[in-house]
């Protein structure tokens, strides 16, 4: 396998833009990534785009606007892990020598999607979906188990959101650049107890794009190579294999594969970006990513280690909670965030001397499965 280098990253603004087309959001991110890479549209050899809602040939409809046509284009969907899946497919193409440079894009227009203003449901004919399962319900049921078995409190969950917004306030791309207090989060409108409104990520429109290439190609443009040294993608296991609801087995499996591939240990990481669509899940991901021993997720949060300036900052971008969550874009965006830190270009939220970072994404729900997909990427400067 060949080394895979990140040559450019870019994103659109994140927010609620019902008047903007998917194409305009996507082009904004792609043009930013190409500009950051220093290459032109005609140099792109392959493209992967991810989008959950809900039209055909996303890559083609976006890239035609900026002169990219007649190349291999693939469109993928993997719920909230879709963007990370697109990056992984491109990573495989370059690692495998199938192309030298390509672009991966995640884009979503939630305000114009069929689920605008609604809870995100499983597939329309899913049994549990019909019986009231939704993303907030699933994460609320898991959060309740964290409270029952590990002594987590609603204040702990609120603290995750407070931490995210403290970081997001420093990120010019965040949808909500506003600090919050634990009391404000706990006191906000109840969505699915114990989850209140300010423990939920907003539904957001936006796009993020990343240019990957071989190291040979990269050397023509830069001397500072940021490599993706591990990439993993694991689909959800049966729910009946799980003793409790306080872990994502697929997330732990994806992390284990990535650590092995990268030849690094969790304690080597300088920063982590992860799926925090709901505040409580972050605590489970700490354990699944082995940032702390099993059962000590609440303790790790309370120690402050995962805050900006702590031992292992988690979601220094502000996370989905403050940035907003354009579903398929988030998995590309959080890999781009790691790149900014490894370059030392993350502005006020920069993690000092970051050399090694991990980006995780998780998504999807279906009757009988614990979740849909989990993906982990590890990047090194």
């Amino acid at each position, binding site marked *: 396998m060949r080394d895979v280098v990140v040559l450019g990253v870019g994103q659109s603004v994140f927010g609620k833009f019902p008047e903007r087309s998917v194409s305009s959001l996507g082009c904004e991110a792609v043009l930013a990534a190409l500009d950051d890479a220093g290459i032109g549209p005609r140099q792109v050899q392959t493209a992967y785009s991810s989008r959950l809602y809900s039209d055909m040939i996303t890559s083609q409809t976006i890239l035609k606007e900026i002169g990219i046509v007649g190349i291999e284009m693939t469109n993928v969907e993997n719920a909230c892990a879709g963007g990370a899946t697109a990056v992984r497919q491109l990573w495989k193409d370059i690692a495998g020598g199938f192309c030298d440079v390509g672009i991966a894009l995640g884009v979503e227009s939630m305000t114009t999607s069929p689920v605008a203003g609604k809870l995100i449901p499983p597939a329309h004919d899913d049994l549990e979906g019909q019986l009231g399962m939704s993303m907030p319900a699933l994460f609320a049921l898991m959060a309740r188990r964290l409270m029952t078995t590990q002594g987590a409190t609603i204040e702990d969950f609120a603290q995750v959101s407070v931490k995210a917004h403290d970081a997001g306030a420093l990120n010019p791309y965040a949808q909500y650049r506003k600090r919050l207090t634990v009391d404000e989060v706990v006191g906000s409108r109840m969505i699915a107890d114990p989850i209140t409104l300010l423990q939920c990520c907003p539904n957001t429109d936006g796009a993020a794009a990343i240019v990957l290439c071989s190291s040979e190609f990269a050397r023509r443009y830069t001397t500072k190579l940021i490599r993706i040294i591990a990439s993993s993608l694991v689909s959800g296991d*049966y729910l009946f294999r799980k003793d409790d609801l306080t872990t994502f087995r697929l997330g732990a499996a994806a992390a284990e594969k990535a650590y092995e591939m990268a030849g690094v240990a969790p304690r080597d990481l300088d920063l982590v970006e992860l799926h925090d669509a709901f505040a409580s899940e972050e605590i489970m991901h700490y354990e699944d990513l082995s940032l702390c021993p099993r059962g000590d997720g609440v303790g790790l949060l309370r120690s402050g280690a995962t805050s900006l300036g702590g031992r292992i900052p988690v979601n220094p971008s502000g996370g989905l909670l403050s940035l907003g969550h354009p579903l398929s874009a988030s998995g590309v965006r959080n890999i781009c965030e790691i790149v900014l830190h490894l370059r030392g270009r993350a502005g006020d939220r920069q993690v000092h001397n970051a050399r090694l970072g991990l980006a995780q994404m998780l998504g999807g729900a279906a009757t009988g499965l614990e979740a849909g997909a989990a993906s982990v990427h590890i990047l090194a400067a």
Partner: protein
Amino acid sequence: MDKSRPLMPGLFRETTDGPVLIGSRCEACGRTHFPLVATCLDCLRKDLKEVDLPRRGTLFSFTTVQVRSSNFGPGHTVGYVELADGVRVFAPLVASKEQPPEVGQHVRLEISPLWRVHDDTEVIGYRFVPELPGAKGEASHA
């Protein structure tokens, strides 16, 4: 008379002891699945027997969702119930202010109209209701 239809065929049935969910027990590995499966999802053998699942269980987790979801308005409660044979089932729960749900609470299966579809057909499904304190003795033969 109102029209009605089951949510899906083969999910539940009435017995002389009351309604039950229908599962598949794998005779090879002993795993019970709900809903019915054609192949054991654990050991992949096809040596399956249709079984009535226990009517009673305990509440494993719950939440009251304050936003409209697919078929329910704001304020609907859902949860996972662990049946007496260990099978975990996601279902709507009957809850009230007077009887708020609680992890570990004893619950019992009920077959009931759950919602109406556009042509006014009632959709019949399953849900769990709290056991009345007096009915505890009954739980032993579930």
